[in-house]
Every structure is written in C-alpha cells, then in structure tokens.
C-alpha cells in the first residue's frame, strides 16, 4: 500500500501543479458563476435606451405606448418624412409608422430603422399593438372589456410533492430537468476528461518505456490503480474547488447586491399595491407578476426546493463510481496500443454507452420514473449519467442503493478485466492488437 500511495501522490501532484489545471480550476467557477450572474446583471444594467418615434396617422394607438424596458416612445405628429429626417440626424433609433388604415389592415404597419431593428423593441411594440387591437375590436363588437377580463380565469396548478417523510414541497419540474441534465452532462464530461487523462498517462509510460523500470519495483496492478486513483483525486479536487468557488462568487454578488436577487412574488404584490386592493384584484395582480417573473422567481424557489447536500453527495459518488469504471477501461486501452492513433478502434465500445446515456437523458427527464429511466440508471455503464439526471426528480432510496451497489460491482469487474489486459499490454511493443488478442490476454492465466 505504501508504494501505491507513492504512485498516487506523484500522479496527483504532477497534474495539479500543471498550469492548465490551475487555469481550468479558476476559470471553471468563473464561467459557472457568470452563467448565473451575467443575465441578472445584464437585465439590470442594460442602460442603453432605445428611442422610438411614433407617427400615428390613425390616431387610434398613440396613447397606448408607455415607456418600458429601456424603450422610450415619443409621439411625433403625423409627418412621416419629418420623423425619418430626425432619425437620420440621430434623434431617434427607429420610427414606427401607423398608417391611417392600420386598423383595417394591420399589415401596413412599419418600423423604420437605420441599423437593424432592436429585437426587444420590436417584440414590445408588437405586443402593445396586439393588446390594443384586441380591446379596439372588443369595443367594436360591443363587449365590455371589464366583463371579459373577469371571465378570463388564470389557472396555474401548483405541483406539490409529498416526500418520504411526509413533508410537502412545491415541485418545479423545469428546475429538476435543468439540474438533471446539467449534472448528467457534467458527469459525462468529467468521465471523459479524466478517463482520457488516464489513457494518455498509461500510453506515456508505455511509449517512454519507463514502465519497465517501474514494474520491476511495483506490481503492474499497483501502477494502474495508483494512476487511476491519482487522476481521480485530481478530478475530485477540481470539482470540489469548483463547487466551493462557484458558491463563493455567487455569494459575494448576493451580498454586494442583495436586491438583485430578491424576487419573491408575494413581496412584489404588496410593494406595487400602495392602496388597498380587493382579494380578487390582488390575486389577479399576483398572477400577472408571477407570469412576468416566472423565470427568476421559479428558479430561486425551485432551487431552494432541491436538496443540495444529497445532490452533491450523490454527484461525488456517481462521478467516482463512473470514473473508476471507465478509467479502468481507458487504462486497458492505453496499455494495449503503441500510439494514440491506435486507440480509436478500442474507444468506440467505451464511448457508445456514455453517448447513449447522454442521448437518452432527454427521454429520461420527460419520464424520470419510466422503465427506460429505471433500467439505464441501474445498469452500471449508463447509471452514473442517468442516475444524476433522475436524482433532482427524487429517486427511491432502494433504487439508489441498488444502482450504487451495482456500480461498485461494475467498477470492480472492469478493474479486474483491465488489470489482466494491462499487465500484458504494457510490456508488449510493436504488435497490432485486436479484440481476439485482448481476449487471449484476459483468459490466459
């Protein structure tokens, strides 16, 4: 064991000290934090105003435009040429022309701009006009808008999950989906990233012929296991630093700009209603705001419903289990060939189950408790990815234990298999190896 730990130490330190490791370790969480922070910041800080002049020859619509979301509307009489001149002078970014016959023929509406039109502004204008068209048409048809609004009943079922301990939590399937896909993908990337590091490490030892010096001191199995564990520790270290740094960076932003992350819908209802509202009106307003803030609000509420300790612990378990299972196979491939080009033929059967898992994860999120999801999360070759996809939806403990147990058996089996290929392969030079040859190595005592 002493020598194995010497090998683990070397494998670990030689990688952790590399510049690429340090760069990746720092950049990773910055990127992840950026994914969380940047949209919030951008939404807050996009201060460049978009000026739209409105030339309404019909006079039906001009009053409907209120400044919103950094788009400023300026009514500008009825002279379209004058407005276009002003735009040319840079006073406006765009000119909305509403011709006289617009009400009868909406397709005559035009938005002029010298640069390409700001998409947000166009969507906003379309939205405003659509609502206005509706209410004008209602008026024409003699239907009181108030009545219609009262008939309209927003239905939004809150999904409540009853947990094992009887606790009720609000279920946000979108959050679970996102989290499941992201963690499944991370496992996939980690397995490939560090698995191929094992492959390259074994190949380096073989081609540089240092392996013969080492195996005269330690058993080939110790060398293989030492490498696999050393690289695995590198992966684990990187992951833990990433988790820690990501929470740290996001935490700093939350601390520095607390209001940026406060979106609790209920508060907003009361803030925006300075005067007393009826229950009905309050409920309506709540719905409206909730629809507007669905993304941000659900994200935060949904995230708070996720059991992060369980997520992280199972991530580490399934990452390590999956990594150990595949790293052994990668090590075997590295030992069997003479150069990187020859690895291709053996890579296919190793990559196929992983790719399959990633492809099937879309199916799994739409039916996380179906038979496909169940079996793929039990079979060790696909379980690390698929189980991580399922966990945010809640997986019975029995299934978790079964999957975990099989994964442990699985990686012991691949390690055994790999060790038999490895001990022959690392000393074999200049021989093109095929599957029949590998089989001989495995079966030969």
């Amino acid at each position, binding site marked *: 064991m002493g020598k194995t730990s*010497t090998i683990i130490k070397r494998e670990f330190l030689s990688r952790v000290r590399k510049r690429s490791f340090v760069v990746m370790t720092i950049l990773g969480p910055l990127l992840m934090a950026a994914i969380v922070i940047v949209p919030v910041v951008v939404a807050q800080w996009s201060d460049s105003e978009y000026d739209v002049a409105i030339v309404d020859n019909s006079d039906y619509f001009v009053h409907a435009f209120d400044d919103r979301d950094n788009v400023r509307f300026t009514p500008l009489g009825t002279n379209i040429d004058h407005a276009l001149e002003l735009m040319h002078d840079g006073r406006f970014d765009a000119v909305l022309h509403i011709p006289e016959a617009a009400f009868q023929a909406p397709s005559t509406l035009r938005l002029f701009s010298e640069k390409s039109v700001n998409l947000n502004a166009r969507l906003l204008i379309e939205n405003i006009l659509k609502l206005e068209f509706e209410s004008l048409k209602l008026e024409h048809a003699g239907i009181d808008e108030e009545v219609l609004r009262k008939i309209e009943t927003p239905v939004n079922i809150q999904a409540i999950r009853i947990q094992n301990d009887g606790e009720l939590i609000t279920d946000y399937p979108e959050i679970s989906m996102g989290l499941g896909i992201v963690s499944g993908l991370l496992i996939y990337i980690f397995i490939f990233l560090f698995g191929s590091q094992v492959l390259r490490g074994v190949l380096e030892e073989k081609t540089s012929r240092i392996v013969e010096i080492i*195996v005269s001191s330690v058993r080939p199995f110790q060398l293989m296991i030492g490498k696999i564990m050393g690289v695995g520790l590198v992966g684990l270290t990187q992951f833990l630093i990433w988790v820690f740094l990501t929470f740290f960076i996001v935490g700093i932003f939350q601390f520095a700009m607390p209001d940026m992350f406060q979106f609790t819908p209920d508060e907003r209802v009361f803030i925006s209603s300075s005067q007393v509202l009826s229950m009905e009106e309050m409920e309506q307003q709540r719905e409206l705001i909730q629809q507007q803030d669905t993304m941000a609000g659900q994200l935060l509420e949904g995230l708070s419903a996720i059991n992060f300790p369980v997520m992280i612990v199972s991530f580490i378990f399934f990452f390590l289990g999956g990594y150990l299972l595949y790293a052994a196979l990668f090590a075997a491939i590295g030992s069997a060939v003479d150069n990187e080009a020859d690895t291709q033929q053996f890579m296919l059967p190793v990559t196929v189950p992983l790719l399959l898992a990633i492809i099937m994860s879309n199916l799994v999120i739409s039916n996380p408790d179906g038979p496909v999801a169940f079996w793929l999360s039990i079979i060790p070759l696909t379980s690390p990815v698929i189980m991580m996809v399922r966990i945010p939806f809640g997986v019975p403990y029995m299934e978790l234990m079964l999957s975990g147990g099989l994964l442990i058996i699985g990686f012991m089996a691949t390690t055994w298999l790999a060790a038999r290929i490895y001990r022959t392969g690392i000393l074999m030079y200049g021989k093109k190896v095929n599957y029949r040859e590998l089989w001989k190595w495995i079966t030969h005592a």
Partner: protein
Amino acid sequence: MDALLRAEHIIKEYANHRALNDVSLEIPEQSIFGLLGPNGAGKTTLIRIINQIIGPDKGEIYLNNEHLKPGHVEKIGYLPEERGLYKKMKVGEQAEYLARLKGLNGFEARKLLKQWFERFDLTPWWNKKVEELSKGMQQKVQFIITVLHKPSLLIFDEPFTGFDPINVNILKEEILKLRHDGATIIFSTHDMASVEELCDHIALINKSEKILEGQVQQIKKQHAGRIYEVELENMKKPLENMLDDRFRLLTSTGTTDSTRARVKILNDTPANDLLQPLLREAQLVAFKELTPSMNDIFIKQVTGRFPAESAETDKQHIKPR
C-alpha cells in the same frame, strides 16, 4: 562460492510459443554473469521473471536460497534495455520517486542521490526536466536509479548503448567497483568484447533453451579447436611438406624466409608432435594455441560452426609455396 541466484527448470509459455524451455541457471555470488543469446532467444523473458514482472509457468527461482518473493524487488536493481523516464518531470524529483518505489525513504534517497549526482557531474541538472538532458545524461540517471538502493543483485540489459566511449569506460569501472563492493551482476549484451572484458561466468540461451553455461576461461578452453599459430623463419622446405596427415594447414602467409601459419592438429595427436618437424626444418619464432573469442563461441553455438573454421573448408586460403 555460493550461488546468489538459482533458477530451476524454468518454463514460460506465451500464447503461441514457448519462450523458455526448462532453463536452469546458477549465478555465483559477487560475479559478473553474462547472459548471452541472439535476439528473441528468451533472455528478456528470463530477466523479467527474475524481476517478478511476470511469473514462470513452471520452475522455481531462489535468491540467497530463499524462494523469490515480492520483498525481493528491493534487493534487485534492473536496468532494462528499452528504458525511459518521464520527460516532463524534473530529474531529481523523478530519481527520488523511483528510489522510493524501490523502498528507500525520501531522506535516504535524496542523500544517496546527491552523492551519485556529484560523482556523475549531474548536480546542476537536478531541477531540470528530463527532456532537457542529453541521451547520455539520461542514461547516467537511469544507471544511478538502478544502483542507488544498493541491491545485492544487479541486472544490466545492454547497459552501454547510447554512451560515448569515455562514458562506457566510466560505466565499466563503476560496474567492476560494484562487484568489488559485493554486488552480483547479471549482464546481458550482444557486445562480446565487453563480455570478455567483464564477465566471470556466462550462460548462452538459444531458441528458449540454455545451451552453454560456465566460467569464461573454462568455456574458452573447451572450445579451443586445437589450432596453433606458428611463426617460422628460414624454412628448408614449404610448410605443407613438413606436415604429415596428422596435421592440417589452415592458412599460411609470407615467404620461406618468414612465414606465419595456422595449423590444426587432428585427432588426439599431442601438440609436441607438431613441434618436432618444425624445429627440424625451420627456425621457430612463435608457437601458441589459438583460443576462440567469445564471439566465435557464440556464433559456433548458435549457428553450429566456428567463423574461423570456415577457413578450414576454404582451401583457397592456403597458398603453398
């Protein structure tokens, strides 16, 4: 002398051929033992078995009369023929790592390494990456790593490849010094000149079987072909006329004034019988038995005939005067 290492009836089979067939060896303590044989004869397989890199299918190996066991790797130092180092790793760090794998602790390893690096003028390279070293320097580092843990058995497989003649000499001196200090050395090479120079004992392996083993001097004596070299002056008649059918003239050069020739004595005729006619008919300047070189013995054992004996059948070389 006791045998440090004994191999008994080693058999090793690979998927499609037998690499070692019932090979037994005894390597005397504190000797330099030449392990010879053509490429693919099974030398490397035997060395790997001694190093416990692979196991034999049948047969036993004893080190110091103890059955070979995992702990023995610390008593063996092995310099493989195909050898390399981690290119991106620093020289000192790497040497220390490999020494630790041989069972030294970090402190000992560093202390011994510093001494050896000083001796081989490698100290300035301690913190350099291996890829910055010349091939010769890398070989020196590998040599140091092999001997650092003071093993009682050293195995050198083609140790001199990649060295310039000056460094080859330094290395030979180190090897002789190691033996003097008590180490036993297995020396595998194709370089027969260095075998003659260094080895006390040899074993010859051909086609998976040991075909020859023994002390170098004895083997040479056994393979002496009863060929004598004579130098004659002032001959009264041509050499071939002096010899009867108990002798055969192999080669002869020069004139009747001064001739150098090789004569093979046939059957069990005593060498003295050759001297008599020579003394009678000419002035004898030199007379000595030719012992075959290890090179000749190697070729004879492997191909079945001496390179020198080819002259025996090639009568064109004999120029009677």
